[in-house]
């Protein structure tokens, strides 16, 4: 350990972290989820469990909300104003609304500034990364996430969650997390990495739809569209543009109010990178 190294690193630290995060992005991975297409089948959630080595916690812990579903389908029976109009016994007949919730990969993420050890930070890919090795488990990030999309390893699950031979199906591309570590949706960062590396080896630009996240791949109704929001030619960028939803705004000024695109809790100025397209319903 040399003093010079420390000073140089300090200078680098000061340069890169002055107002937190990166300023020059290579990508801004984002999503568009069409709630008209979502049938609430939970296939995305299952795919996420398989792809990302999520622990299955068992019924008792599930009942205590000690769950690990990075991708969760939120079911709401009806809009409250509609529920008031019809008796409670009937309003389920109108059908539920489904909202697939996964880490919104906010550009101004509230979880990042509060981590005492900087275990969560913004990558040049525009992703909100979680460094498992660095995490000390203060759980402040989860408490400061308005979407409640961060999950904590309350126990060591590797002994109980995958009894043999199930451990053979664990994805070797990423770790199995131990107790005391926070985790959350990574937008399948291992797939992003592999595709980026491949494109770099072939010496070409990464194309749209060259790879998919696990949830997108599994969705039977193709409700989920994933891609780079930096590149205006990707399908996801086109969808965002078509719905007049822009990054970096706490309130979208749409010319056409009938456009269905919205971002969850946009007004909190977290700048999430997932756009949802509202479900159109017959009343």
């Amino acid at each position, binding site marked *: 350990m040399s003093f010079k190294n420390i000073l140089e690193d300090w200078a680098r630290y000061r340069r890169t972290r002055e107002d937190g995060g990166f300023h020059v992005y290579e990508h801004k991975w984002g999503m568009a989820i069409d709630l008209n297409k979502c049938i609430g089948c939970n296939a995305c959630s299952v795919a996420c469990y398989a792809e990302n080595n999520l622990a299955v916690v068992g019924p008792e812990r599930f009942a*205590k*909300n000690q769950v690990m579903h990075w991708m969760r389908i939120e079911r709401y029976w009806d809009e409250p104003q509609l529920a008031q109009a019809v008796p409670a016994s009937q309003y389920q007949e109108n059908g539920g609304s489904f*909202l697939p919730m996964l880490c919104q990969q906010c550009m101004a993420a509230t979880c990042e500034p*509060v981590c005492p050890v900087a275990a969560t930070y913004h990558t040049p890919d525009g992703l909100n990364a979680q460094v498992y090795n660095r*995490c*000390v488990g*203060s759980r402040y990030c989860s408490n400061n996430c308005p979407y*409640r999309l961060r999950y904590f390893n309350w*126990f060591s699950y590797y002994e109980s969650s995958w009894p043999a031979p199930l451990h053979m199906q664990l994805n070797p591309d990423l770790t199995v997390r131990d107790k005391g570590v926070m985790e959350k949706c990574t937008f399948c960062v291992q797939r992003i990495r592999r595709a980026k590396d491949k494109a770099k080896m072939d010496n070409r630009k990464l194309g749209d739809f060259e790879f998919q996240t696990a949830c997108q791949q599994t969705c039977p109704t193709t409700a989920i569209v994933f891609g780079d929001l930096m590149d205006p030619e990707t399908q996801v960028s086109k969808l965002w543009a078509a719905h007049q939803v822009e990054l970096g705004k706490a309130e979208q000024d749409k010319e056409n109010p009938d456009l269905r695109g919205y971002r969850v809790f946009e007004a*909190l100025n977290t700048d999430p990178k997932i756009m949802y397209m509202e479900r159109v319903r017959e009343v």
Partner: protein
Amino acid sequence: MQTKDINEQIKWAQINNDVLRSLENPRMAYWVAVGICVAMIACAVIGVGYVYTTGQGTLDLYWPDMWGTWIGTFIFWIGMSHSGTLLSAILHIVHADWRKPIYRFAEAMTTFSLMTAGLFPIIHLGRMWNLYWVIPYASDRGIWPNFRSPLVWDAFAIFTYLTSSALFLYIGMVPDLAICRDNARGWRKKLYTVLSLGWAGTDRQWRNFRKTYLLMACFLIPLAVSVHSIVSSDFAMSIMPGWHVTTFPPYFVAGALYSGCAAIITLFIILRYFFRFEEYMTIPILEKTCKLTFVIAMAWTYLNAIEFATVWYGPDQVDKELLINKFTGPYSPYFWAMLFFGSVMPFTLAFEKLRRHIPTMFVVSLFLNVGMWLERWMIVSPTLSLSYEPFAWKVVWPSIVQWAVVFGSFGWFGLLFLVFVKVFPSVSMYEVKEMVYHRRRAVVDDNAKALHRRSSDPQPAAEMPGA
């Protein structure tokens, strides 16, 4: 009815004897108290060991309430630490001499509650063995803590406050340690000889001592205020409804002073009873402390009302929903209990008859602290379990492990305090003498009459009776 803060005819030797007596010959009750505290600590140690080996899930913490009672208790102990040093320093600067018989144990209370509070952020970490990552140490990898995080500020603030309040306690004790040294034998003699730093009571020593003490007092007032403001920024800096509140720093400081004052009353009564300190910890001083507590309680109530009003008349729907949820939802019994103990109970302090009745004050002061503990829990848990995302709303009762550690923390505090009162003088002998001296000058007006002076005029250098 006792009306004087202190009997000004009391002899110097009697003060020494009374205080030094409290250091000797622990009675059966003392050992029973030590035993109870050790048993309580054992509960906590078993609990923490279980969490350490099994995982934080045994606390029945859950998504989304990931902090629960431990962090609430952490704020509680930090809060309790505020009255001792802060009040001692403020009252020292404004020359309120009634602080003198009671400040020593109050400062000890500060130090020990900080030592208790500091344990909670450590044990609540998922991987507590990596705690040192929060400290900015130079490493070749160039990895630093995140200085934007209020938790890092917390670590600095609490450590600074612990160091300075322990130093303040110690510096104020040096002349007394010299008295102890002169009267002790055996291991105590050795201990006090080292700790009293060769104090001989010379003019130069007193001059330097006064300067240092005053400086420390001036330094500690802003420090103490900032510490609890920083602790409040753990919440106020976040985005969550019910936490993202601008009035949190003063609210936390008021709450801290409140619970600290209530704890001072409790310990005052215990020490007065067990150590027969009736001559020093007098009813008028208890009354003054009670009045102070009442004022702070009203300030706390006012800040509470402000918070409710700003939420109620404010534009934020989620905040409003949370407030309504606190009043009517699953946490409402505790919320109403908090309001009752915190805002209604202190009105007992407004009546002189009750203030002077020691058993009543003992019970009331305990309940005030129950209320303040509930307040901290009501800050942490409802916001976490009932915030923006309605899908995540869930309330789970904290598990027995959580309660065991919260319970055990009181034992840890109690044990530290019990050791303190038997090793160090819990009443400041030299300052009580000062107080008596000044009271004598103000009250004994025989000399003044003889010289046709008012008692407040400067006195001739005559020998005072009994000095």
